[in-house]
């Protein structure tokens, strides 16, 4: 059977199955009898309900590069240091150097260029690879610390974010991070990220 005729046969059997209610016709000319076409899709299936604003707010925790989603609160790296030491250092090291199997989160090598594609020995950190500072806050808020995600207050999150950025030499230790200043931080790798061109360019990309 060709693919086309197989598809036709499959389609016919589906219609037959759907129209099973009309399949009992005694019409001697056709075992199938008359079959109605499937109903068109309704304007709405009228399922579900409208969420309350507080329901949306409870889950809508994402932060984007423009800073949309950042809560009120503020902290410096100096203030965040004690939070980091108490809740993060056990997995990421006292200075963010990493504790196996967790890789470092602090480090700026290579200072020049962005040779990760050429050199498999280069280790990616927040300082040398992450393109947006807001992602640090977003990720910490979602997933850290791993044994107690969602437990840090906004001030603690701003503090740990500031500490990581300061240890990477991106901001000063006394600079306040809040919903206005964090999106203004330009990460060293910001301009290194390019959109996927594989489908729009011929050949192997």
């Amino acid at each position, binding site marked *: 059977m060709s693919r086309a005729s197989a598809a036709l046969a499959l389609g016919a059997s589906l219609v037959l199955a759907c129209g099973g209610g009309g399949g009992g016709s005694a019409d001697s000319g056709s075992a199938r009898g008359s079959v109605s076409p499937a109903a068109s*899709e309704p304007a*709405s*299936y009228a*399922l*579900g*309900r*409208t*969420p309350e604003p507080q*329901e*949306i707010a409870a*889950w*809508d*925790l*994402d*932060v*984007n*590069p*423009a800073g949309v989603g950042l809560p009120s609160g503020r902290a410096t790296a100096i203030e965040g240091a004690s939070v980091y030491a108490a809740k993060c250092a056990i997995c990421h090291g006292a200075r963010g150097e990493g504790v196996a*199997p967790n890789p470092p989160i602090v480090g700026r090598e290579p200072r020049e*260029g*962005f*040779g*990760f*594609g*050429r*050199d*498999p*020995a*280069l280790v*990616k950190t*927040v300082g040398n*690879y*992450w*393109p*947006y500072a*807001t*992602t640090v806050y*977003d*990720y910490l808020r*979602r*997933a850290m610390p*791993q044994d107690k*995600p969602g437990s840090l207050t906004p001030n603690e999150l701003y503090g740990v974010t500031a500490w990581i950025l300061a240890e990477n030499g991106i901001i000063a230790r006394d600079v306040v991070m809040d919903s206005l200043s964090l999106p203004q931080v330009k990460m060293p*790798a910001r301009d*290194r*990220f*390019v*959109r*996927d*061109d*594989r*489908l729009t360019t011929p050949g*192997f*990309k």
Partner: protein
Amino acid sequence: MAGSPDDRSLTRRELLVSTATALSAAALLPESDQAALGTQPAEPAIPADPTKAPGPPTSAASARSPFVQMARTPTGAIAGSSLAPIHLMNGTVTPSDLHFERHHAGVAMIDPARYRLMLHGLVDRPLVLTLDELKSFPSVTRVYFLECSGNGRAAYNSPKPELTPQLIDGLLGNAEWTGVPVRTVLREVGVRSEATWALAEGGDAALLSRSIPLEKLTEDSLLVYAMNGEPLRPAAGYPVRLLNPGWEGNTCVKWLRRLELISQPNMSRDETSKYSDPLPNDTARQFSFVMDAKSTITYPTYPVQLTRRGWIEIRGLAWSGRARITAVDVSTDGGRTWTAAKLQEPVLDKALVRFTHSFQWNGERSTILSRAVDATGYVQPTLAEFRRVRGSGTNYHYNHLRAWTVQADGRVVYEAAP
């Protein structure tokens, strides 16, 4: 589970109760622990002549033969993966309990009665659905492959002769998925014209999130609740996951709890610091969603040793996230000459395809490779071409040719040569 069938010390009722208790207790365990239960030393009662004694009675669920050993490679990590034994599988459907896993904060255990899916953001009518409500929408069933874009890393970064297809490409599965097209649900909420992406977020302890272009979601993405005929297993995202056909597995967010329509990508951790591909020109490719065409031989491969000369059937898998596979070429002389392999029908779009090729092995050292071609004309690249274009330090989407060498003694090893 409760003694051999001829264990007279248990009454039938006791057997039923203890089996039910063990089943319900096992159901509460993470799958890794369930697997551990299943791998306890089996003491199968195998009669000398099975035609002379009746076997065990019917049961609630079938187990594999005690003679069959198929297992993933769990590491015990909360943020980690386990690879599927693809070299031990036949055909194209991955058994659900052996489908690969990749979790970022363990397997979320979700009570379906408390499950909610929320759609909000740039929509006219925000919506919350229960699981029952989601399952009430018109459903579709499709076969698609699912692959982690980190698949192949072991062979690229640290090749060695003792690599199995499982260790190289085991972050790969193929299943029949049932769910609701995302576009069906988006129609309900009224997507505003300024929306161009949606943030898909899981309800796991990582709240894993990915920004997905609206164009894909309205094209063929599914809100999946069943896999191979049964509800999703927890490791696969129970009760609901997103499935973006042909796209990297990480975008197919498990335990999906939220779709927020947005006008720019969120730049989440898993679409910036992870799942981006460094290139040799000092950039990193971002939002590299599509899985390029790829194939791998699954037999004969390490640790197989051929024990007799003559005809063998080379078997393997091919797949492409771009389009349907149209051809797989096989070489048995290290890539000098190629022959078209047989593709097992039906060949489905964005699904695994089984290919076979008869090969007369005469005892000589032979390097065997496969090469996939898809309907866009895309040809799976050589390792040398891959390394030249992507660089030695690149990450993800390792789709270069895989080669194995059948040595003169019949042993088969992974061939790391370009």
